[in-house]
């Protein structure tokens, strides 16, 4: 439905609508309306109820995005071609890194700031609108920090690759997530939930710090020049994968020994991170139950009786077929999480694993809100199989996180290919050796045990 004000000129309601040929103009509100709706003090856009009238910083985001894209094309080509004479100078590796970073940051940032300034001046002149101080700081912070993330990421990728083509291909690992992030930011601005932007600034700062640290480690003469001899060796990669997968084990006992002694040790930090994320997911879900309330009458705990078991059986539960279905669903989820995790430094995988825990937490919270005993629900419907499934999720998430971070946390002296192949083998060891057996066990429990315990605990029969 077209909710634009009628007419092809400034409307009576005070909205700026200058003509059909300018799609951007009609969403600009008149300043006096904004002023009055924000309580007379702060000039700010209207919120979601009137979102079609929001003076949105979309074009500002556009300026930032295209500036960043352009700089990335520039960066990868220029870095390699102009590097060697600089390597021969007395500059230290750290100075070279900082210099290259500054050289890559300043032009796109200047262009982005210029674009933002021109757009805002346009808004001021045309509709007398100025952004709130908070929004302005957020836009400038996001622009700067995103550029830093992209530059530091580009330096990491550029340092790890041996050709401009490879660097350009890998650049999509930065450009696509950042493009999606910018679109997300635009949506957040559209809905006027500006406080979320601070969290994004914080997250991006953390990512920038991680990438800068990696860049400082990778950006040294020895690593940069030694990588010129890195080659695409599929057979060698296959051998390396197999060798890392077996890890010198001569029989399954030795293999499992190595898995528990070495692999667990290597992923202990990702295990901690994943556990914390899942825990946070549960509690966030639990807290959200108070915000998005479910009606208490939908919780009928006495419905878990033998009839319910019959219904479950009709759906394939309590049969071996149900085990296969649940196992396959879990495996699919983990494969999807792995693929997405590889492209996003493991971040999307963690989010995917977090969601079921958040939903569980939400239902637990909703039961509490309804005055019911959430622990009973958890004990009866979740715990019997979650006691195995959650550790499997944590281990799997940790292995994916390790794999996703492989590109930016290579062992010293390893090429990207070597480091990634080794991490992939580690992921395979953990997934096949531990996660898969745990998922099989969890699926069996979920199909055969959990429904019976639910009936036993909740209906007492």
């Amino acid at each position, binding site marked *: 439905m077209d909710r634009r004000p009628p007419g092809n000129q400034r409307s009576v309601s005070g909205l700026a609508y200058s003509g059909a040929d300018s799609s951007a103009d009609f969403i600009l509100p008149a300043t006096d309306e904004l002023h009055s709706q924000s309580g007379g003090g702060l000039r700010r856009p209207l919120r979601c109820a009137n979102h079609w009238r929001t003076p949105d910083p979309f074009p500002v985001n556009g300026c930032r995005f295209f500036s960043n894209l352009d700089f990335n094309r520039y960066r990868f080509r220029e870095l390699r*071609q*102009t*590097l*060697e*004479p*600089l*390597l*021969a*100078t*007395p*500059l*230290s590796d750290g100075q070279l890194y900082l210099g290259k970073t500054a050289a890559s940051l300043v032009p796109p940032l200047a262009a982005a700031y210029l674009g933002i300034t021109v757009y805002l001046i346009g808004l001021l002149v045309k509709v007398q609108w100025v952004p709130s101080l908070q929004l302005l700081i957020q836009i400038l912070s996001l622009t700067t920090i995103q550029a830093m993330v992209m530059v530091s990421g580009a330096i990491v990728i550029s340092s790890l690759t041996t050709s401009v083509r490879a660097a350009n291909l890998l650049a999509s690992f930065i450009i696509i997530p950042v493009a999606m992030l910018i679109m997300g930011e635009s949506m957040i601005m559209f809905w006027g939930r500006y406080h979320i932007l601070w969290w994004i600034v914080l997250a991006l700062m953390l990512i920038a710090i991680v990438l800068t640290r990696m860049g400082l480690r990778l950006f040294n*003469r*020895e690593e940069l*020049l*030694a990588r010129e*001899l890195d080659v695409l060796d599929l057979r060698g990669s296959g051998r390396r994968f197999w060798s890392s997968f077996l890890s010198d084990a001569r029989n399954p006992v030795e293999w499992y020994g190595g898995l528990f002694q070495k692999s667990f040790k290597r992923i202990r930090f990702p295990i901690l991170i994943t556990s914390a994320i899942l825990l946070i997911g549960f509690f966030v879900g639990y807290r959200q139950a108070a915000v998005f309330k479910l009606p208490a009458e939908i919780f009928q705990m006495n419905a878990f009786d033998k009839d319910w078991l019959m219904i479950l059986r009709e759906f394939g539960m309590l049969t071996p077929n149900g085990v296969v279905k649940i196992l396959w669903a879990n495996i699919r989820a983990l494969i999807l999480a792995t693929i997405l995790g590889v492209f996003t430094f493991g971040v999307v995988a963690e989010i995917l694993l977090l969601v079921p825990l958040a939903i569980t937490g939400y239902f637990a919270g909703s039961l509490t809100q309804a005055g019911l005993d959430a622990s009973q629900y958890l004990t009866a419907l979740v715990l019997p199989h979650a006691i195995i499934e959650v550790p499997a999720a944590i281990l799997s998430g940790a292995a994916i996180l390790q794999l996703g971070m492989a590109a930016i946390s290579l062992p010293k002296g390893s090429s990207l290919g070597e480091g990634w192949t080794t991490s992939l083998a580690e992921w395979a060891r953990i997934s096949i050796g531990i996660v898969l057996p745990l998922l099989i066990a969890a699926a069996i429990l979920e199909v055969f045990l959990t429904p019976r315990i639910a009936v036993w605990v909740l209906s007492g029969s």
Partner: protein
Amino acid sequence: MSSIEANSLCKKFGTFTAVDDVSLHVKPGEILALLGPNGAGKTTTIRMLASILKPTHGNAKIAGYDIEHEQEAVRSVVGLLTEQHGLYNRMRAGEYLDFFGSVYGLDSSMIQQRINTLLDEYKLQEFTNLRLGQYSKGMRQKLALVRALLHEPQVLLLDEPTSAMDPESAHHVRGSIVELRSADRAIIVCTHNLFEAEALADRIAIIRRGKIIANDSPLELKRMMVGDPVMELRLACSLDGALEHLPEGIVEIAAGDNWVRYSTSQADVVNPEILYSLAKAGIPVVTLSRVERSLEEVYLQVVSEDDSQEGTIDGR
């Protein structure tokens, strides 16, 4: 004392040995040509000497500084001309050189003075208004050489200095390199161009598969590899009866109607003797000259010997 003293340098990348037990000594004012095919290990050797790469084994001193433990000092006394000149296309020559001068810690007045001198010397002064992206390949290479000379380094390491240059520019750059040694600079020129190596170098080190397989002056290399110098005697009459005037001990290589080629290790003794006896016998001599043998012969000889040794080793 040598400006460049490299002892048993070795560089491995994983399992690949790029440089294997390379020892080089270059005195001030001396030019050494590091001659070898692509992938022989020339650039890796140069990079180790410039303290850009660390050797896996061995050590080297550049102007008295250790390449592993005094890296910044080494880089401040080395002028490196890299194979990829790495110019910034959007800059002009003055801006570019000014930037590199400041990176080397020179003060601005000295930078300006050296920029003017060097741009004049390399005939680039008239192009200072152009952006470097508009320079021809030869001009770019010359500017890269100017950059390498800007801080007046004691040691110059030149990686393929005339590659991609037209003959005239290449000739000019070669002339400049020869002049550069006058300031007591030790110079290493990496090249796979035999003519260039012979024209520039006091000594030639032939490198192959990361190893130095020959290292001596061009003349001595020729003598060692293709035997004693060959002389050609041309007469104004038939050779008949003239051969008996040649002293014993010389080796006749080839002969024609009125000429003969022979080899001797003592040309300074044998040649006057021959001229004397021919003059005494009334046989008119047109010329007596040394037959120039190209370095190509030497190079191919060295390489074929190296190949046959490899074959023996492989065959064991």
